[in-house]
């Protein structure tokens, strides 16, 4: 598991899903199921920007941009400097 995925796991586990971080399935839909709601998303975007150095615009905070942990990790890694 890469560093980015580990940080995202930790964040999602503690702030949205309230389960141990190693038990979030990579392919679990998060946005389309409402598990991560729109208010969580604003926080998540701030976390990604300040802690992981990648910017996700507010217009991209929807399941068409990413829905699972695997997709989010790929998106963040692609945008990291």
């Amino acid at each position, binding site marked *: 598991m890469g560093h980015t995925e580990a940080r995202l796991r930790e964040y999602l586990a503690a702030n949205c*899903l309230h389960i141990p971080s190693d038990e979030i399935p990579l392919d679990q839909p998060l946005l389309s199921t409402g598990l991560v709601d729109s208010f969580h998303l604003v926080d998540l975007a701030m976390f990604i920007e300040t802690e992981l150095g990648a910017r996700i615009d507010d217009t991209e905070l929807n399941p068409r941009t990413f829905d699972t942990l695997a997709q989010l990790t790929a998106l963040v890694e692609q945008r990291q400097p």
Partner: protein
Amino acid sequence: MSLPARTLPQVMFDRYRTSPEQTAVVLRLNEGETALTVRQLVDGALGYAARLRQAGIAPGEVVIALLPPGAELLHAFLGAMFLGAIPSILPFLTEKLDPQRYRESLDSLISVTRPAALIAEPDLADVLRTQLAHASEVKAMLASDAPGVDLPPIDTATLEGLRAAPDSLALLQHSSGTTGLQKGVALSHRAILRQLAAYTLALGLTPSDIIVSWLPLYHDMGLIAGFLMPVLTGAKLVLLSPFEWARAPWTMLRAVSEHGGTLAWLPNFAYNFCATRIPDRELNGLDLSSWRAVINCSEPMVAESHRLFSSRLRPFGLSETALATCYAMAENVFAVTQGGIDRPVRLDRVDREMLVKQGRAVPAGGADRRTTEVVSAGEPLANCEVRVLSPDGTPLPQRQIGELVLRSDCMLTGYFNRPDATASALREGWYLTGDLGYLAEGEVFITGRKKDLMIVGGKNIYPQDIEYLINQVPGVHPGRVVVFGLFNESMGTEEPAAVVEVDPAVRLEANRLGLAIREAVATGSEVTLGPLKLVDERWLVKTSSGKIARGANREKLLAELGREA
């Protein structure tokens, strides 16, 4: 301003005659803006009136709009009202919601409300036509994309809404719910116009006011403060989408800055959200000095939330006196009290222990852990009387906590088709609010609630509805679920918390079950579950008759979490 007691369509048509080219609403949606003049607003509504009439909808029948925020929703709502039908707005089906649960909830509502028409976007209208169990009982399912272009323009002289009796029903305001608990608050033209007369006076509202709102129109705060009041009194409305606001809360602040917004209504959690979730780059250059009142309404008001909001936005021109408060409920059309308009919102510092243990609000000195700050909801509107009653129904003196009861000349006609619910909500002309609080020096202070209701981000949610959703999840011991609200300080609102007994026969892996429960709540309701505790058969507290005791289980969980009740 004074509105003679007539009907809402008459008031709208007066405006149509005197100032047709005035901007009524600016729709700020999908990153663009569209202005609707009074003429465009009314003409669009007349299109819907013609379509509804052609579909056989008669005056006095209920028309439900299931539309996203936008011009179609405003037109459909007003069009039904022009026709003399009774419109009601309910949430549309979003991506997040489970379509089956959504249909169940609609079916349950239809069985009580018996609407003659549903109006939805084309895809949803198709689904409803074919998949609603009660579809055959609804006369018309209209799609919003097919304006009646080929219909002859309606003759306004034939519109029943313009000739209706002031005491006839103008609209229904529904509470949410999945288990048959939802009630449609039925309001007459007269009640709504009296509310607007009293509330505009309390606010000092004039046609030069500009209201900025992202509030959904299926709640009273959005429907009245964020739609009907501005549109009927001539104040300009800048309307945003709640969905866009949730992912970019600065959009509201930009709208205030660009349009010179003067008034907005927000639930308490929005103060925390704006204060802590907006990066500096989105605030740079904003001028919020036009904002004369930002009104905290619809959920418990927290002094700290005001301080956070104010200190974050003062550098951008927010006036120190802009913070205001309001206590409102659909049963009174909307506002019962208003505070913070002529003078700053009063904070009542009282002894915490006396408040909790003796139900008395005793003024206390210093700010320490023994005191608590209660935010004033302001004074009752000129047409509203508020009393505080003891459990046996006797009026209590000042600073004694009891149930708040309300009497006014703008109250509900009743819960639609629910005489049982109407009878139990009213006693000798007083509406029993279910809220707990006290009166002091003419102002109303809310301290809690008598009923189980949770208020999550301004939305009224019954724990029974969330329990119902969790009960359906495989691996949960059916009937062994308890849900209650817990206040989350950093969010500034309540979160639904659940204690769930695991079915020993299924023994799903705990975290999979946890995710399944969260998903069931998220897709079946308007809220996201907060704390969740999975327990075995020994944990839940039951009453002597074997029922699960909500309050006792809440206290037990709080004790485990190391928090005060």
